[in-house]
């Protein structure tokens, strides 16, 4: 079935894609009530252009999760384009929707080819050859993101530094009112360390499996920029190294596919700063604590909708507690 906005979308895209004749195969990929992702092809001068539409219908502000730090879709598009200018691999944004287009808030971007599912990237034979190089390539992508000139983005993006991040999750944890002594210890451990965080760069905010597009040739793009902000670049490094994203391959610190030393080498080779392992560990601790508090939030969601999936994720907060034991008490990574 053709969605009601298809005609308006075509009219809007005629401004950006000269020679556009038709839109084909428009179909919904995912999304909740406030955020939709659609795939479609634009036929431009007889050529088929694969595209993605990200939109919130009626321009309604999106709700991604409780206390979410998501930016507006138009801001997300702005950050992606700024990053692409610095050489970051990301989908090209073709058009940012305007209110008068009548399609809602959002943007149209290039649809790229690759895989985002961790299980396939970590196990399928077609990724065997490239897998050992992925950590280095992720380091390169992150180094470029962190070198984006934020001057043009300053007025649009929130500044969320280490101390602010911790406060945000402390408040969330407190609001759930359920005792987790290991989380308390992690908050206490992180407080002075994150208060010392001084760097301010563009931060992707959610660079992990699911949001990294990978092909048998390597890392193709950083996707899903909705949590983009200005903050400490180590946040991105710590997040991709958090054990929750290693999918059982704990010895492969980076996303379950690579070594930290390779990520750091790629980071430096692409112009990134030389990073200390202890600082990376601090932000892995933050990543585990953050995911642990998010799991507690899943239980709150379960109490609203009774979802067995949310209930099960609620019980995964203990996984992050053992990760915190390994990091803080045992000094492992």
């Amino acid at each position, binding site marked *: 079935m053709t969605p009601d906005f298809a005609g308006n979308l075509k009219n809007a895209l005629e401004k950006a894609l000269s020679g556009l004749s038709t839109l084909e195969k428009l179909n919904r990929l995912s999304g909740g009530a406030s955020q939709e992702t659609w795939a479609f092809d634009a036929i431009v001068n007889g050529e088929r252009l694969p595209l993605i539409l990200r939109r919130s219908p009626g321009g309604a502000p999106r709700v991604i999760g409780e206390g979410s730090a998501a930016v507006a879709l138009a801001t997300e598009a702005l950050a992606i384009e700024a990053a692409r200018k610095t050489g970051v691999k990301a989908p090209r944004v073709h058009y940012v929707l305007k209110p008068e287009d009548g399609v809602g808030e959002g943007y149209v971007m290039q649809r790229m080819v690759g895989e985002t599912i961790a299980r396939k990237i970590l196990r399928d034979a077609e990724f065997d050859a490239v897998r050992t190089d992925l950590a280095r390539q992720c380091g390169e992508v992150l180094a470029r993101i962190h070198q984006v000139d934020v001057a043009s983005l300053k007025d649009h993006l929130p500044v969320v530094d280490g101390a602010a991040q911790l406060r945000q999750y402390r408040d969330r944890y407190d609001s759930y009112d359920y005792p987790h002594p290991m989380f*308390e210890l992690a908050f206490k451990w992180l407080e002075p360390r994150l208060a010392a965080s001084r760097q301010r760069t563009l931060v992707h905010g959610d660079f992990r499996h699911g949001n990294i597009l990978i092909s048998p040739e390597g890392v193709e793009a950083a996707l899903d920029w909705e949590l983009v902000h200005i903050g400490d670049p180590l946040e991105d490094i710590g997040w991709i190294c958090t054990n929750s994203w290693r999918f059982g*391959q*704990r010895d492969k610190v980076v996303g379950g596919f690579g070594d930290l030393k390779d990520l750091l080498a790629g980071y430096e080779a692409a112009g990134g700063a030389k990073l200390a392992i202890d600082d990376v560990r601090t932000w892995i601790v933050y990543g585990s604590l953050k995911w642990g508090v998010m799991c507690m939030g899943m239980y709150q969601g379960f109490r609203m909708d009774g979802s*067995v999936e949310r209930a*099960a994720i609620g019980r995964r907060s203990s996984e992050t507690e*053992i*990760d915190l034991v390994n990091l*803080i*008490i045992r000094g492992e990574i």
Partner: protein
Amino acid sequence: MMDQPSMLELVAAVRAFIEERAMPELKGHTAFHARVAANALGIVVRELEQGPKAQGEEIQRLTALLGRDGTLDELNRELCRRIRSGDITLETPGLADHLERTTRDKVAIDQPKYSGLK
């Protein structure tokens, strides 16, 4: 005294029914959620089997650490308060050991195959 079957046997029977009979008949999202439901019953089975011993030991350690009696909930809340205030730290004898043992016991119930447990 309740009659047979035991709680453990009932839960195990429901889990086996989901995995062996229901799941092969299901598709897509519903099949995925049936897998999640069966795994959740796995948590219940392990908690029934391992929970009493683990919680008994947890309450003993907390009593020694805090120097007072109370329910598991009361003692855990007090431990949280005292970690937050800085009264109890990693240097406090028994804290690191308590946190590690308690967490290992929890994960052994929730997700015994989790990589962090190895």
